[in-house]
C-alpha cells in the first residue's frame, strides 16, 4: 500500500494567486491615488486656501459692521442624525470690527430675542464657522438673519433672502415639497 498520498494539483486560481500576489499588493498601494484629488481639495478648503468656502455669498452690512459670508459646501443641507438637517456657513469679520464684535449669530427667520438669536459662529474672526439647522418646513422665501453683538452691548441685525444665501438649500427645500 502506498502511504504517501499524491499531492493534489493546485487549482488555477491558487496558482494565479501564488504567482501574482506580490504584484497585486503593489497595485493596492495605487488605490489611495484615486482619492487624492478630493483629499487635497478638502485640505485646501479647510485651510482657507480656496477662500472662505465653496460659494462666496459676499459682503453683508450689519449695522456699522460687516462680514463676508460663504457657504462651506455648495450643496444641500446634510442630515445630522436626530438633530435634523444642517448647513455649514463660514464668515470673516471686517478688519475694523474684529475687536468690537463679541458674537455673531445666524438664524432662519427673525430672532425673537438675543437669547434665541440662533447658532453662534465660532473660530477665528478671519474664518468663523456655524452649523445652521434647516427645518424641513422652512419656506423657500425664508430669510437668513445675522445678529451681531458688540462688546459694548450693542446689537445689530441684517437679513438676506435664503435663495441668495444658499440656492442649493432652496432647491433642496423645493424638492422636499414644502412640508406643513
Amino acid at each position, binding site marked *: 500500500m502506498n502511504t504517501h498520498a499524491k499531492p493534489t494539483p493546485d487549482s488555477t486560481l491558487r496558482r494565479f494567486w501564488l504567482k501574482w500576489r506580490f504584484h497585486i499588493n503593489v497595485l493596492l498601494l495605487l488605490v489611495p491615488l484615486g482619492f487624492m484629488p478630493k483629499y487635497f481639495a478638502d485640505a485646501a478648503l479647510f485651510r482657507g486656501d480656496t477662500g472662505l468656502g465653496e460659494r462666496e455669498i459676499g459682503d453683508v452690512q450689519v449695522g456699522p459692521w460687516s462680514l463676508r459670508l460663504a457657504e462651506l459646501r455648495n450643496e444641500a443641507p446634510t442630515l445630522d442624525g*436626530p*438633530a435634523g438637517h*444642517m448647513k455649514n456657513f463660514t464668515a470673516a469679520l471686517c478688519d475694523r470690527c474684529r475687536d468690537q464684535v463679541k*458674537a455673531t449669530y445666524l438664524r432662519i427667520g427673525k430672532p*425673537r430675542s438675543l437669547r434665541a438669536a*440662533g447658532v453662534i459662529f465660532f473660530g477665528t474672526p478671519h474664518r468663523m464657522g456655524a452649523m445652521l*439647522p434647516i427645518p424641513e418646513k422652512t419656506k423657500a422665501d425664508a430669510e437668513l438673519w445675522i445678529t451681531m453683538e458688540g462688546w459694548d452691548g450693542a446689537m445689530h441685525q441684517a437679513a438676506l433672502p435664503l435663495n441668495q444665501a444658499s440656492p442649493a438649500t432652496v432647491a433642496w427645500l423645493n424638492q422636499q415639497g414644502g412640508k406643513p
Partner: protein
Amino acid sequence: MIRVFRPLQTVLLVLCTGFSASALAHNPMCECKAVDAEQIKCTGGFSDGSGAPGVTLDVIGYDETILVPGKLGADSTLTFKKPGAEFYVLFDAGPGHVVEIDQADIETP
C-alpha cells in the same frame, strides 16, 4: 496551507475605513409633546446621543416674559403646565446652542 482570505480581518478593515471620518458634531436638540390636555413634557439632548440633565429650559411668552423658568431633570426631561398665553419653549444650552419650539409645533396626544 496559507489561507488566502481572512474574513474577520477583512471585515475589520472595511469597518475601520468606513467609519473613520464620521462627523463628531453634537448639536442641541429638544422635543416637546403634550402628555395630556394640561401638561407638556420636553426632552432635551445632543445629537451625539448624550443627555442634557440640568440644562435650562424656559417657557417664554410671545411678549418675551418668562412664564416657566426651568431646568431639565436627571432624565433630561421637564414636564410643565401648559400656560394660558401664547408661548414658545427655549432649550438653552448656552449662547448659540439653543433650540426653539413654538407652541404650534408641539404634538398633541
